[in-house]
């Protein structure tokens, strides 16, 4: 029987359509059908200035907007050859890790909700509220922050921000203990997730999986540690790696990542350097408001950057970061003008989604829901 697990479904985490060929409760074949959220962002980026693309990048993987910002901004800075001051780099790492925790909280809440554990969902979203308030404090926006700009940050963090972050970082590890208390040792959780939707390491690499989907199968590779960017080499953190390649291994990886991320946030707050938050590049980075209002040159630079943009030397660059879902990359081709020639987003979820048939064929229909949750897909990133 051919069954359609249509785009409107509470467990597909977005508008994903799965065409299932089933025999009783067993899956014979599974085929994902995507494209319901395609908005043509890659085409739109070709019509905008480089600085105008930053708000577009927020909306691609809408659960970790700051990570998308970071990837795009690092790629353009590589094209321009800009030096970013240390305070901006540490702030970027700190907010990136808070975003990782944010994304994993949504993952844990919705994954547990699909499998039936409804309390975890409300607990996770209670912590997410605190993080969203921190983002609102620093950038004015809860989700689509666009806080990282080409050349540094948009604004100085306000007074009292670091105290709030420190306070959150002190409270959070005990909350992760709460979630683990409810799920990790729970026999129902174990029966639904252990041994389910297994994928071997060779299959995962061949199918292009990355992030926790790859690490759950035993491959120890993390872009933050192995190919560091934006100051990650100054931070000490462990990378949790699973062994079995099933849903439970991926769950343990992500919960471990939440703990490591909050430790990194604490390291960042304690070691935050002083200094400017924007690079010294008057033709690229907008000047301070006060300088713009009092100095003629700053006003001229501001006017030119906003109306004409800045020309980026010709060339191409591929910058990848470790997003909560895996390797997110931006491939930007420039031909010397103020608008990019081609912007391509390498979506971690698109490659991870290819592992779904291998994981689910031959298993029960209920395992498909657990598998989709464990890959942690976001349709905005798949469809762009």
């Amino acid at each position, binding site marked *: 029987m051919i069954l359609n697990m249509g785009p409107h479904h509470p467990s597909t985490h977005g508008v994903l359509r799965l065409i299932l060929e089933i025999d009783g409760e067993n899956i014979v074949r599974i085929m994902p059908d995507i494209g319901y959220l395609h908005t043509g962002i890659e085409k739109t980026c070709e019509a905008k200035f480089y600085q105008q693309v930053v708000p577009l990048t927020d909306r691609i993987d809408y659960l970790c907007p700051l990570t998308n910002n970071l990837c795009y901004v690092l790629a353009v800075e590589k094209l321009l050859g800009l030096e970013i001051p240390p305070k901006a780099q540490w702030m970027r790492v700190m907010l990136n890790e808070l975003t990782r925790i944010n994304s994993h909280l949504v993952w844990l809440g919705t994954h547990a909700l699909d499998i039936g554990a409804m309390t975890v969902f409300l607990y996770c979203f209670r912590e997410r509220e605190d993080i969203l308030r921190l983002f609102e404090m620093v950038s004015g926006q809860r989700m689509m922050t666009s806080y990282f700009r080409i050349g540094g940050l948009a604004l100085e963090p306000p007074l009292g921000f670091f105290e709030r972050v420190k306070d959150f970082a002190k409270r959070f590890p005990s909350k992760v203990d709460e979630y683990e208390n409810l799920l990790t040792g729970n026999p129902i959780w174990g029966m639904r997730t252990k041994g389910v939707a297994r994928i071997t390491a060779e299959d995962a690499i061949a199918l*292009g999986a990355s992030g926790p989907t790859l690490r759950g199968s035993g491959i120890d590779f993390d872009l933050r540690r192995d190919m560091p960017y934006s100051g990650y080499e100054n931070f000490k953190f462990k990378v949790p790696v699973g062994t079995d390649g099933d849903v439970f291994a991926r769950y343990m990886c992500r919960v471990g990542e939440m703990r490591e991320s909050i430790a990194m946030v604490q390291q960042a707050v304690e070691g935050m350097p002083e200094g400017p938050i924007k690079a010294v590049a008057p033709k690229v980075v907008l000047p301070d408001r006060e300088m713009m209002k009092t100095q003629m040159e700053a006003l001229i630079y501001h006017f030119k950057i906003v109306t004409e943009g800045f020309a980026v030397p010709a060339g191409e660059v591929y910058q990848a970061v470790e997003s909560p879902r895996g390797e997110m990359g931006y491939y930007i081709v420039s031909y010397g003008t103020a608008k990019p020639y*081609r912007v391509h987003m390498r979506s971690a979820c698109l490659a991870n989604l*290819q592992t779904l048939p291998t994981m689910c064929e031959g298993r029960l229909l209920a395992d498909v829901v657990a598998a989709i949750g464990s890959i942690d897909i976001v349709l905005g990133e798949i469809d762009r």
Partner: protein
Amino acid sequence: MPLQPAITDLEQLKQHPAIAALLAWNPSSVEGAKFDREEMSVYVERSSILDACELLRQNPDCPYNYLADVTCVDWFPSEPRFEVVYHLLSHSKKERVRLKVRLDGGSPALDSITAVWPAANYFEREVFDLFGIRFAGHPYLRRILMPEDWEGNPLRKDYPVEGYR
């Protein structure tokens, strides 16, 4: 870091493991190379892309075991019009390399590399959908993002940003 000028001379770059492996196997497969902003790009000749990918995956010095991305750039109206770009990553050596294949605009076709990495499946479908490049040997070459009955290839440069509807 301030920008260095790009190095495009093949003589200077042939020590790089990917280029050395390709030149040792078939010197005519490498049409050129560029080292710019600390990234290596290799222009591969069209008919040798499948063998080149398999060779790089098995390369003992630096095995590029992971396909990160397959995409395309449209250089309309100059010819060769399309450039299909492959990004490879070596987990063990933490190195990336970019392979580029130039295609003419007429009826662009290329070998599919799904035999080497099944990961190329969705990426090549996306390039077929949005640019119109056919991949020979692909198990299921259909439109992936646009609806099945869509006409035209939206990411080509002669397709307007606003669309036709």
